[in-house]
């Protein structure tokens, strides 16, 4: 279960493809003029990621090492073509707005990178999860960027007009780079804060554990001393020589515990 939690966290936050790994920059910059474009592109990439990851993972032992990249591209291109056909038939507006960037998903770094680095080395379920969460991370990043650029550049959100105030800069290519930079900076800052907090939490937990172990060790040594004293008294009373080591053993156990702590 922890493995899948890690995959989910990696995809959405720790290794977010757009904001952390800075992959798939071309559609990110070009298509985020509208939030709807971000969702459309994100969902298309998510579908291709999941399907290609599953197939590549299933065929990972069949595809020879020498032709793995052409084979991956073939598989990815098949799913991209399916997405194109479906969008053209069912969602022509989104198909038109994505334009050239839809067929370019074939050479999207995120998909090829996940195929090469994850799907070709992991089982089907893990690969599907990786595709899903990487896709979610990509979709979230694109949608958020698209929303900000649409609000500031067009004064609307998801096509609903909010106000007449517009800053044309945010609709331009320069505005795309600017927004992307701000997003990367903010994401990096919050990710480092989260990681710091997590480290602090882990450190506190470790300290508490150390403290507990040390207390246990002290208690054990006190008990050992008490039992030694009792044994010595009994020996004195009975006049038999004292059995070797009970106290010594307890001391060594306490020492080990201290070491562990």
């Amino acid at each position: 279960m922890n493995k899948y939690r890690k995959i989910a966290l990696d995809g959405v936050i720790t290794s977010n493809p757009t904001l952390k790994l800075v992959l798939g920059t071309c559609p990110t910059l070009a298509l985020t003029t509208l939030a709807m474009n971000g969702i459309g592109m994100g969902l298309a990439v998510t579908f291709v990621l999941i399907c290609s990851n599953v197939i590549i993972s299933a065929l990972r032992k069949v595809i020879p090492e020498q032709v793995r990249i052409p084979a991956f591209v073939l598989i990815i291109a098949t799913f991209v073509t399916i997405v194109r056909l479906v969008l053209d038939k069912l969602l022509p507006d989104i198909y038109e707005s994505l334009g050239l960037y839809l067929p370019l998903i074939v050479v999207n770094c995120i998909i090829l990178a996940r195929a090469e680095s994850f799907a070709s080395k992991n089982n089907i379920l893990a690969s599907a999860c990786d595709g899903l969460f990487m896709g979610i991370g990509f979709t979230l990043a694109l949608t958020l960027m698209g929303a900000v650029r649409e609000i500031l550049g067009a004064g609307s959100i998801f096509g609903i007009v909010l106000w007449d105030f517009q800053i044309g800069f945010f609709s331009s290519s320069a505005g795309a780079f600017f927004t992307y930079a701000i997003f990367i900076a903010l994401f990096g800052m919050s990710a480092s804060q989260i990681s710091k907090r997590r480290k602090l939490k882990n450190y506190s937990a470790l300290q508490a554990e150390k403290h507990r172990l040390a207390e246990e060790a002290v208690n054990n040594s006190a008990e050992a001393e008490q039992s030694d004293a009792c044994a010595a008294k009994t020996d004195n009373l009975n006049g038999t020589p004292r059995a070797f080591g009970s106290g010594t053993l307890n001391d060594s156990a306490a020492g080990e515990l201290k070491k562990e702590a």
Partner: protein
Amino acid sequence: MAKFFHSVWFRCISVLLIISVISGGLLAVLNDILYVTAAERTARAVAKIYGKAIPVEEENIILDVDSENPDKTTPIEYEFGRIDKIFIINDDLLFQTVGYNGYKNGTVTLWIKVILQDGVYKTDKIILETYTKQTLMSKFGDSYFEGFKLTDITESYENGDYFTSETGVNSNPNTGATFSANACCNAVNCVIKYMGENHE
């Protein structure tokens, strides 16, 4: 021979071939299911222009290269473009025109709505249908096509007042895509010429 069948090369080629054949088969089936017909594309364009779906009856088709009627399938050719479709919808004329001489000799296909107002033919709405080889065409927004609105098409024809990409307003200074703009101008010029010659 047996050595070849056990070699890595044979395995590589067979794996790639098998993937290609399976992908090809799957895509062929899906293409058959999801293919968008010319009639469907026309219906979409009409819905986009009029804001609602309006069926185009056979008697309202003046010209349609995709029509089943062979008398209506010959496009009207000019040196700078051609007209593929002319429909009469709600007393308006709807043209599908193809402008030549774009970037790398590519083309731009537009839908142009012509209305008759106070006895004068005017262009009302122009939308982009498709294009070939025009890499910067996606940069041409709706506002660009607003620049092609004519108040009197017949007068423009009589004065020889055709659009050119060098006339300033339609040269699209934002992108500098002069050749693509030229193809757009040619697509609109097809309507000016047709209306000028056949306005009666």
